[in-house]
Every structure is written in structure tokens, then in C-alpha cells.
């Protein structure tokens, strides 16, 4: 069924398969439930299952870990924590030169919420999770730093002693004469922007199955890792074996990655160590909560960018100041996100003078890693917002600012100020066609008409260069030239492909590309079929990797949009080599010259005499059956492996110029958005995206890459953020909080193409997978800026953020009401409350109750027992909950600032499997006018851990209810009425509370 339609689609036998949208070979199995994803593949008998205990705190010292109860739990085979892992492995390498360790599991200290603290290995996942709940960890909480600018300050808590403060790297660069340009330019226009944390979150999560062979000291690991395989070196080092004793394999299918599955590698170390410790194979499939909280994310970045601008909008120089937030650890290959675009800091523009300061900081958030767009979204958000601002401030149409600055069409290959070699393109033509075919004039008319009705409508643009095929040496730009000299040059991007012919002459292809849905097998079958004159269905392609048996190198894997330009091209080179030899074999068999041989329709034959031909399989199989008949100089035609690395990818030079990527596609986007006056939701009315990705191998797949990237970018622009509270609590731990766009949110973009082949790749193709992740967020932001006339646009464009911009100040509260709570700072999730009650007991009596463990046991909600540590320090076991949400906690209550019978400060904490709570309240007692006592309280409380990341929406209410329960019980015990607070609804709620169930 696979090839029926594709065979029909072929217009004539002369035209190549490449360039046609043939049906995918991958689809039949995937459409009928027969895919082979990692969790679909059977494991060996006796395989154990792992689950992780993760940190509820953003920053804390681990005081003790008690695993004894967990070890006794049913089905448990082992419980390992940081010290165990440290004893079996060595630290992961860190991307900069600094005396800092990076363990895949917390050792002594946790630095982000979700950091692995212990691993349970048990007979099944359910039992493993049971035991996780029984591990008893005591933490001493440290202050956390979440904001990247705050991390730079002198007061900030320091995460790693080996970095200066929290700065892992601080480098400055200068290309041309930026200071001169700024001094003489008539305008200096600047912008300060922040790019949020987000992730392209594949629907399939991480998975690892590991086994250890003690007799040979060798690991065998199956993981849905995606590359780059430079990480293999990191892994074998961490596992303390030579590379040839770490066999790393990938499953046939992978449920999306978008860079993210690079981040599985620390878990490979942990699961491999667990297999070693237990002597059994161990399997771990990450769950969605783990994935959102702790897998990996893109970097968030703060950028100050200034341009020296001429009167006509020409940009003469740029001054970048970038602060990159890599989270709690600088894990390989970071800080690559910051340097991936280093050659492209001038975007699509001809700007000769450039100044850059790059700082990398660590904060108490999940470590970062690969993510579609990788550095591009962050750079273009600043650059293209600046271009829009130049238009606004100089009163020039922003599109004119773009066109006046584009690299001229006759300048290719064009060397950018910081060293990238832009291979080919015609940017002016692409913009012209994008505007024309995207009906920009009509869109502008629409904007005018809609605005005339009082509606909010804006148009945005973005012009970006999309780099692909990363130079493995670009990351060394983070080192100084002197450090690089010492370390030795790094460069290149080895791609590999193997073509093999079996004894019946059928053709197999193997590449180390590890696709996650991009249809590599189909495209390679087209490329190779064209070389041999066969049908794609004649070619079998394998894209799995097995580091023991396959050809691979550090650049192997699926990232940096390298498939079409590098991998497919290398497969062609390998096929060409075999074809050249087969040509000689055929020439001798058919008695003609080599030049006369053609491969057509399953035959090898003479061009001049079409009747003189022989079947391909016959010629191809000869090398197996009768090597003696091969012409002299042809050893065999059985197998050919080609390694290809482009010569253009050189190491950074002494002046820090770096050709960070091999190919550069071009994208011009324009869009119209409308912002609803009531909901403030941004709706993309029309989106046009013009691509030049060189030669197109499979139009439908290119289309698929554009649409998929666009949908993710729309998510980044409008919905998605890995949000943290000020204390480092993670707030978006479910897919009901981290919002991926659905069919209702994603419009269908108008996709346009130009094809300017790359002179540097075998097939002329360039990468296309990441471009819209770079262009779309800022294009939408520019349109919103145009619609509301604002300078500061913060992604994601949560409607609430536009309230003040669009509506100005909020209507004042009615006079008789208290003013609303003072505006909270962003990320401040503290709960505050206040109330009082009149009770019949006297002040001394109430006072005695507060200091008595037995009374406390009666008033602390859900209290099982109170232990008195000192006169002012109590410990309790409590079950807390609201509705069905219940958990057991260890609570501590400390009294301080005692003013007997008058006032006391009560500090409480609760720690349990669902998270923790901390609060402090001041209770004051004063005689009531008609006898008895007035108890007044005021408190501040915070909640974190698992419950904050998955139940954030319900949390505040829950905490208030529980605190209310405490005071209500206190009042009741003291013979009193209910508490009354200033807030009406709060009274009502308390009244219902008493009137109701308890």
C-alpha cells in the first residue's frame, strides 16, 4: 500500500524522486499502532523499574536522607542517593573552565525544584513510586535566586562556589569599529528585552533502559536520545568506562524531540548506575510531571541591544549585551545556546561594526539544553524588536528599515562581522515576493478599516537568517583565544552515511541521524533511488544508531537542522561512490564505456543503446557472487561508508570570528493580529511566511517542518512559559498549566518558497526545521506592539499583561471597601491574611493553651500527635488536606517574641510528599470590652514543592482554608465565636465552614 500512490505520483521516468512529496515509508506502522517507541519495546526478564524522588526546594542543603522505610517497601530492590551515584560515577563535564562539579543527582545540596535526590529501583513503577513517598529527607533551606539580573548582584545567593558569584562566563567581543560608528551616527536607538523560558515539549517523554555487564565492565543503554553524539564522550567519562564499553542505542521510533531529548543524558548516567548497583536491567520512562518540571528547557535571556542608526534607517553598528540564564548547572553542551548564533548577531543585515558582551549566569531553575531554534528566538526577539523600534522612532515604515539593511543579493557568499559565511540567497527578492504574494497591501487596508471601527489591529514583520549544520567548534568561542590554543582547535561537523548491497542486489542505507518524526527514511530512499535508478520502495533505510556497530561521530544525531543539508547529502555521496563502481562493473559486462552507463528503471544500461541493459540487482549482486569478474581496481561494491565534513566550518580565529553554521536559509514573515478589547486575547488574523531553504527535497515535509515550528512558536509567543515563583517554586507542572496550543489556537499560515541552492552542500539544500521558532515569536510581538503602540512587549502575551497597556489604570474600588491588596510583585506567591475573634476564655487561659502541646494537638488541623522539643518548639505529625487532596506532613511549630498573655509569634512549617508550607503569624490577645479575650492574628505563608507545580490554581484557597481551620479550632477551644476578618467573603466562608460540616 505504501508505494502505490507514490508510483503514480511520478510524472515520468526521467524526473527525479527528490523534490516530490511521496508518501512516507514510516506511516503505515505508525497509523496502525505498530510503531516501536522506547516504551513499546519489550525488555529482558527481570528488568526493574525506576522512579525518582525530586527536590521540592529550589535551593537547600540536604541534611539527611533516610531510606530505611523505603527499602522495606514491597518490591523494592535498591534506593540510591547522591552519595551512591558519586561513588560510582564521575561528574559530568562543565562547558566552561571552572572548578565546578555537575552531578546528575543532587549531592549534598539541591539547586532547583525537581532535581533528582534519590532513585528507587523496584519490581514495577507503581511500587517504585510507593517507596519514593517513604524516603525521609531533611533539608536546610537556602535563599534561592530565580531572576537572572538578580543573580548578578552582590547579595545574590551563590549556587556554585567555583564560579565568580553566579557568573559562569563573561566575554566581550568587538568587530570593526563599533565605538566610532556609535560616536558618529545621528541616532542611537536601543531596546531592553527579556525572552522567557519555554520548551518545545515533545508528546513522548524521555525513556532509558540500561544494563551492565560486570564481567566486561560494559554498559548497554537504549535511550530515546537524539544527539549530538558528542554527549557519548560525556557519558562514558561519567560512567568511568572507555567509549567502547558504553553501547548506546536508540529505538526505531521517537515521539518528537525538537532538541529536548538531548536532555535525557543525565538520566542515562543515573539509570546505568542503577543497573550496575542492582545487577539487573533497569527501565525508566519519564512521566509528564517530571518532564515539565525537570527535563530541560530553553534558556531565558535578558538583552540590551543598541543600534547606531543613520537618518535613513541604515544600521551602522550594533551593541549587544546578553545575559543568558542556564539554570542551576551548566550542563553540556551549554552555554552553546548563547554561541550558536554568534556568527549571526547581525541577522539578515549588512552591518559591519559590532560589539558584544555575553554573560552566562546560573540560577535556581532547571538546567537548560537543546530546544528547537536554539539561541535564534532569543537573538531575533531583540534584533527584530529593535528594527521595529527604529521604524517607530524615526517614523519610517519598519519594512523599509528591513529592506534598507538587508545583505545585498550580489554579496554572497557574505562574511558577517563576527565571522559567519552566509552561503547564498536573495533576501530583497524574498521580501518583495513575501509582501506581494502575502498581499501586504490588502492587509494594510484591512488594518486601517478595522482600526477605524475602534478595534486593535497591528502588523508585524521579521526577517531572519536561519542557520543550519552547526560547526562543532562554535562553542569554543566561549573560551578566550589563549584558552583555545591550550585546548586545541575544535571544528567541523562530521556526517556519515552507509550504503550496502546484499547478495540479491537490494540496497540498504544507514545513517546516524536519529529522526523523531521528520521522515528521514523516506527522504533518503528518494535520494538513493535517484542515484541508482530505482524506486524509493526498493531502498530500505535504517536510522537507528548503535554506537558499537554503526558509523558515527560526535556530530551525529538530529539537531541544528542538519539532516537535509548534511546527512542526506552524505548519503548521496556514498551512493554516488557505489554507483561509480557499479558503472565500471556494468561497462565491462555490457561492453561499453563507463560514461555511457545510466541507471534507469531498475536497470543499468547503455545510454546510446537502450536495449543493452541488465537488471540493477544482477550487477549489484556480482560483488557477492563472483568478485573475480569485477574489473581491475574495483575491490567490491558491497558497502560504502562516507564521512563528510564541510571545509567551510573552521575553528574560531584569533579575532574570535566564527563561522558558526554551514548554511543559512532566509525567512521573511509578516502577520496581522487583532487583540480583542474584552478578553485582550491576541488572534493571528493572517500569517505569511516566506522561506528560502535552498533546494527542497520533499515539499510536504518542508511544509510540515514549517507548520510544526510555527505552531510551537505561536505557543512561545502567546501561551507557553516555564514559570517560577520568587522562591524558585515551579508553577507550570501540568499540561493544564503549561499550555500547548491546540487546533483552536493555531491558524494555518500562508507558506511561500524560493529556492536558492547552497553552494556548500551536496544537494544544495539547507536546514528548515527551526526557522519559524526564530521568526514567529518576534513577528507576532511586533504586530502586537503595532496594535497597542507599546515598546515593552513581554512574551508570552498572556492577556492580563496587556490590561494596563490597553486600559490604563483600573477603575477604583468602591469607597466603602478596603483598597485591594497592594499590587504584588511578579512571582510573589505569598499568602497574607488577618482576622480576629472574641472568645470567652481569659487572656492568660488562651496564652496557656498556645503553649500546651495537648491543646495544640487539638487545634492543629489533622494532628495525630505533638512532640514537645522545648518550651517553645513543638513537632507534630499531621494529615492536611482539602476536598480529596490529602497528604501526611511533618510539622514544626516554633514560638518566639513571647510577650506573656499579650502576644506571640508563631512560625510553622510542614513537609511532606506533596510539598511544603512555611508560614509565620503574630497572634495578639487583648481583653474584650464585654469580658473574654479578642484574639487577633495576621500571617504570611508560602507553599512550594510538587503541589505548587501541579495544583497552583487551587493552592491559595487550600492554604487559607487550612490556616482558617487552625484559628477556628483555637477559637472554639477557647470558648469563642468565629473569626472575623475585614474581607466580607472571608467571613462568609468561615461562617459556612462552621455552619457546615464540622
Amino acid at each position, binding site marked *: 500500500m505504501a508505494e502505490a500512490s507514490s508510483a503514480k505520483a511520478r510524472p515520468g521516468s526521467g524526473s527525479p524522486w527528490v523534490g516530490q512529496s511521496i508518501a512516507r515509508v514510516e506511516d503505515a506502522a505508525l497509523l496502525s499502532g505498530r510503531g516501536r517507541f522506547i516504551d513499546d519495546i519489550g525488555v529482558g526478564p527481570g528488568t526493574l523499574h525506576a522512579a525518582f524522588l525530586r527536590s521540592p526546594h529550589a535551593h537547600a542543603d540536604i541534611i539527611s536522607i533516610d531510606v530505611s522505610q523505603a527499602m522495606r517497601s514491597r518490591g523494592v530492590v535498591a534506593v540510591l542517593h547522591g552519595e551512591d551515584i558519586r561513588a560510582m560515577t564521575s561528574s559530568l563535564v562543565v562547558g566552561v573552565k571552572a572548578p565546578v562539579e555537575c552531578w546528575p543527582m543532587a549531592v549534598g545540596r539541591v539547586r532547583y525544584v525537581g532535581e533528582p535526590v534519590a532513585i528507587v529501583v523496584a519490581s514495577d513503577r507503581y511500587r517504585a*513510586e510507593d517507596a519514593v513517598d517513604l524516603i525521609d529527607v531533611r533539608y536546610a533551606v537556602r535563599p534561592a535566586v530565580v531572576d537572572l539580573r538578580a543573580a548578578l548582584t552582590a547579595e545574590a545567593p551563590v549556587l556554585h562556589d567555583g564560579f565568580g558569584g553566579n557568573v559562569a562566563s563573561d566575554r566581550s567581543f568587538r568587530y570593526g569599529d563599533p565605538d566610532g560608528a556609535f560616536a558618529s551616527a545621528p541616532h542611537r536607538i536601543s531596546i531592553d528585552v527579556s525572552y522567557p523560558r519555554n520548551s518545545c515539549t515533545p508528546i513522548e517523554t524521555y525513556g532509558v533502559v540500561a544494563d551492565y555487564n560486570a564481567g566486561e565492565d560494559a554498559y548497554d543503554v537504549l535511550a530515546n536520545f537524539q544527539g549530538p553524539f558528542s554527549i557519548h564522550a560525556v557519558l562514558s567519562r561519567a560512567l568511568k568506562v572507555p567509549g567502547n564499553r558504553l553501547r548506546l542505542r536508540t529505538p526505531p521510533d521517537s515521539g518528537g524531540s525538537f532538541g529536548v531529548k538531548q536532555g535525557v543524558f543525565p538520566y542515562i548516567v543515573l539509570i546505568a548506575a542503577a543497573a550496575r548497583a542492582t545487577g539487573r536491567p533497569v527501565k525508566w520512562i519519564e512521566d509528564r510531571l517530571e518532564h515539565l518540571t525537570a527535563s530541560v528547557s530553553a534558556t531565558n535571556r535578558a538583552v540590551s541591544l543598541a543600534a547606531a542608526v543613520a537618518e535613513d534607517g541604515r544600521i551602522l553598528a550594533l551593541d549587544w549585551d546578553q545575559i543568558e540564564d542556564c539554570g542551576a548547572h551548566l550542563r553540556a553542551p551549554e552555554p552553546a545556546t548563547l554561541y550558536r548564533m554568534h556568527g549571526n548577531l547581525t541577522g539578515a543585515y549588512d552591518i559591519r561594526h559590532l560589539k558584544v558582551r555575553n554573560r552566562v549566569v546560573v540560577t535556581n531553575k532547571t538546567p537548560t539544553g537543546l530546544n528547537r531554534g536554539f539561541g535564534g528566538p532569543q537573538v531575533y526577539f531583540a534584533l527584530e524588536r529593535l528594527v521595529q523600534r527604529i521604524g517607530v522612532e524615526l517614523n519610517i515604515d519598519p519594512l523599509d528599515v528591513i529592506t534598507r539593511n538587508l545583505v545585498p543579493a550580489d554579496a554572497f557568499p557574505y562574511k558577517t562581522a563576527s565571522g559567519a559565511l552566509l552561503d547564498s540567497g536573495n533576501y530583497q527578492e524574498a521580501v518583495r515576493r513575501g509582501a506581494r504574494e502575502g498581499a501586504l497591501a490588502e492587509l494594510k487596508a484591512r488594518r486601517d478599516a478595522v482600526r477605524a471601527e475602534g478595534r486593535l489591529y497591528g502588523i508585524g514583520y521579521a526577517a531572519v537568517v536561519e542557520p543550519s549544520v552547526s560547526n562543532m567548534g562554535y562553542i569554543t568561542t566561549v573560551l578566550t583565544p589563549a584558552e583555545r590554543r591550550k585546548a586545541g582547535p575544535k571544528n567541523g561537523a562530521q556526517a556519515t552515511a552507509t550504503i550496502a548491497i546484499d547478495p540479491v542486489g537490494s540496497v540498504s542505507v544507514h545513517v546516524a541521524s536519529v529522526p523523531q518524526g521528520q521522515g528521514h527514511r523516506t527522504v533518503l530512499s528518494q535520494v538513493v533511488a535517484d542515484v541508482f535508478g530505482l524506486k524509493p520502495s526498493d531502498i530500505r533505510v535504517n536510522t537507528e544508531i548503535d554506537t558499537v556497530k554503526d558509523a558515527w561521530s560526535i556530530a551525529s544525531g538530529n539537531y541544528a537542522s542538519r539532516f537535509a543539508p548534511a546527512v542526506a547529502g552524505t548519503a548521496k555521496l556514498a551512493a554516488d561512490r557505489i554507483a561509480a563502481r557499479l558503472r565500471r562493473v556494468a561497462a565491462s559486462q555490457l561492453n561499453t564505456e563507463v560514461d555511457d552507463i545510466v541507471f534507469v528503471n531498475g536497470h543499468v544500461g547503455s545510454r546510446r543503446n537502450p536495449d543493452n541493459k541488465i537488471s540493477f540487482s544482477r550487477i549489484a549482486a556480482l560483488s557477492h557472487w563472483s568478485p573475480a569478474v569485477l574489473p581491475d581496481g574495483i575491490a567490491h561494491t558491497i558497502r560504502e561508508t562516507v564521512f563528510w565534513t564541510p571545509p567551510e566550518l573552521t575553528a574560531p580565529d584569533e579575532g574570535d570570528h566564527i563561522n558558526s553554521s554551514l548554511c543559512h536559509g532566509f525567512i521573511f514573515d509578516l502577520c496581522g493580529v487583532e487583540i480583542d478589547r474584552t478578553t485582550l486575547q491576541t488572534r493571528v488574523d493572517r500569517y505569511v511566511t516566506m522561506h528560502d531553504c535552498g533546494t527542497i527535497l520533499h515539499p510536504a515535509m518542508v511544509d510540515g517542518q514549517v507548520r510544526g515550528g510555527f505552531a510551537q512558536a505561536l505557543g512561545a509567543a502567546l501561551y507557553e512559559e516555564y514559570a517560577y515563583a520568587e522562591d524558585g517554586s515551579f508553577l507550570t507542572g501540568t499540561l493544564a498549566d503549561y499550555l500547548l496550543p491546540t487546533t483552536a489556537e493555531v491558524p494555518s499560515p500562508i507558506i511561500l518558497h524560493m529556492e536558492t541552492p547552497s553552494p556548500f552542500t551536496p544537494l544544495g539544500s539547507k536546514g528548515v526545521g527551526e526557522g519559524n521558532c526564530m521568526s514567529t515569536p518576534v513577528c507576532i510581538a511586533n504586530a502586537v506592539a503595532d496594535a497597542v503602540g507599546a515598546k515593552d512587549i513581554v512574551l508570552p502575551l498572556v492577556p492580563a499583561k496587556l490590561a494596563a497597556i490597553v486600559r490604563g489604570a483600573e477603575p477604583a474600588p468602591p469607597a466603602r471597601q478596603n483598597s485591594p491588596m497592594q499590587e504584588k510583585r511578579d512571582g510573589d506567591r505569598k499568602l497574607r491574611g488577618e482576622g480576629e475573634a472574641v472568645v470567652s476564655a481569659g487572656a492568660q487561659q488562651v496564652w496557656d493553651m498556645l503553649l500546651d502541646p495537648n491543646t495544640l494537638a487539638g487545634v492543629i488541623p489533622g494532628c495525630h500527635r505533638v512532640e514537645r522539643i522545648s518550651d517553645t518548639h513543638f513537632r507534630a505529625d499531621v494529615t492536611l488536606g482539602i476536598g480529596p487532596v490529602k497528604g501526611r506532613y511533618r510539622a514544626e511549630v516554633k514560638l518566639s517574641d513571647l510577650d506573656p498573655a499579650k502576644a506571640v509569634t508563631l512560625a510553622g512549617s510542614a513537609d511532606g510528599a506533596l510539598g511544603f508550607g512555611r508560614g509565620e503569624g503574630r497572634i495578639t490577645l487583648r481583653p474584650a470590652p464585654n469580658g473574654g479575650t479578642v484574639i487577633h492574628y495576621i500571617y504570611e505563608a508560602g507553599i512550594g514543592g510538587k503541589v505548587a507545580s501541579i495544583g497552583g490554581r487551587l493552592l491559595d*484557597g487550600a492554604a487559607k482554608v487550612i490556616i482558617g481551620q487552625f484559628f477556628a479550632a483555637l477559637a472554639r477551644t477557647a470558648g469563642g465565636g468565629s473569626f472575623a476578618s475585614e474581607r466580607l467573603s472571608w467571613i462568609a466562608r468561615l461562617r459556612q465552614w462552621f455552619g457546615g460540616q464540622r
Partner: protein
Amino acid sequence: MKPAAFDYVRAEHLDEVLDTLNREGGDARVIAGGQSLMPMLNMRLARPTTLIDIMRLPQLAHIERNGDNVIIGAAVRQSTLLAWPELAETLPLVARALPWTGHVQTRSRGTVCGSVAHADPSAELPLVLCALGGEVHLRSRRKRRRVPANDFFTGMMVTTRADDELIEAISLPTNRNACAFREVARRHGDFAIVACAAVATKGGVCLAIGGVGDTPVTREFPRLASGALDDALNTFAYELDARDDVHASARYRRDLVRLLGAELIREVLS
């Protein structure tokens, strides 16, 4: 992300449910469609020791008209109610609000009463129950009682249901008055940031707001001139004690109460 262990009771008679609840109280949970409870079990937010499955009790699976009331049994799925031929005519507000509850794929399992039992302040069903002045029918081994919706919801996921009580049904008074429903969520099918229901009454409009306070909140608005209505809505908006979260600010929620409230009241009165 797997549930903690529990016993599973597949009830074949109502008595079995009531007996089990009577014996095990708060440690037992009733499961119907499971669309609210199962995520909490998977995340181990809830750890009941017994689950009582009521979906094989045919007597709970009825929608009945009883005089001016529509009674919806505990095992009636949301999709069943949505497909009930008399819905648009007897309960136009429900017909408007129910499509906003979750997605086709969750409404086909989730029950009407399950959503009421869960008492999520952003959910649509508790909101329309309050807006229409419906009742919750509770039953334990000892007694049966009916609680007016506005007394039933007491806080975030907290209700006046006692631990030994089963929500046997809810009843909604048929109401053919003019009504309107609007909801703003980040995405289609998400929990409401603000959900707003309005029903014409003798003196004006009953407006119910979900997603802002800890429970749905209803308020009668007499016919007012637009300036006075704006003031009244502003007061109402501030009284709801809105909070900030990652999806919306308190101010944005108040804005929506003011704007949607005015829109819906106008729509219902016109």
C-alpha cells in the same frame, strides 16, 4: 505518576455504596466518570484507601423531569445530558454552558454530579447549578437531604457533603427565562479564568461568576441605568477577592467581571 494502592468496590446496589461510605467515611471516595478524580489519583494528590465505582448502578443513570425540576442522577455523563433532547427547551443555560466543560473526549466519561462533587470554582456545572438555584441531593445510610447549591459549595473543592454521604443526584429548576453564558479561558476547553452566567429574574438579572472566588458567586442585579450598573458591577468585582496566578492577574479577572457582566446583563434584558 501512578496511583497509590486502594481497594476497588464495584457496587451493584446503592446500599453497598452507602454502607461502604458509612463504614469507611473520608477514606473512601466515590468514582464515577473519573475525569476529576483520576488525575488526582495519578498525581497522588488524593490517596483514598477505597474507591467505590457507581457506574454500574442503573438507577443513578437517569435524567428525569419531576414537575418543574430536572433531576440528573449521579451516573449521568456530561455527554448524555448534552444529548438529552429536552435540554435546550428546559434548561437553555445548561445547554449553553455544558459545551465549555472539558472536551468531547472527557465529557463522554465525566459525569454531571462528579463535576459538582469536585467543586472546582472554575468549573461550569457548579456555576450553572448556583445560577439556576438548583439543589444537591445527598444520601447517607441514615438520611437523605437536599442542599441548595449556594450552600453546598463552601470553598475551593470543599462542600457541605459529609464523609458518609453520596451525591445521589442534582436537581435543576426548569428555567426558560432569557439567559446567557460566556467564558474566558486561555485556550478552548481550559478551566475558566472567568465564567459568567446570567438568567433573567422577576426584578432583573441573576449573575453568577465562576473562576474568581473560591466558589461560584451569584448576585441579583435589579434593572439599573448603565452608570449605576457599572458601579454595581465594579463593587461586585472587588468583592470577589480575585487572585493572581500564572494565567491571569486579579485585575484582569475584575476587568472581565465588569465587562462580561455588563455584556451579559444587557443581553439578557434586551
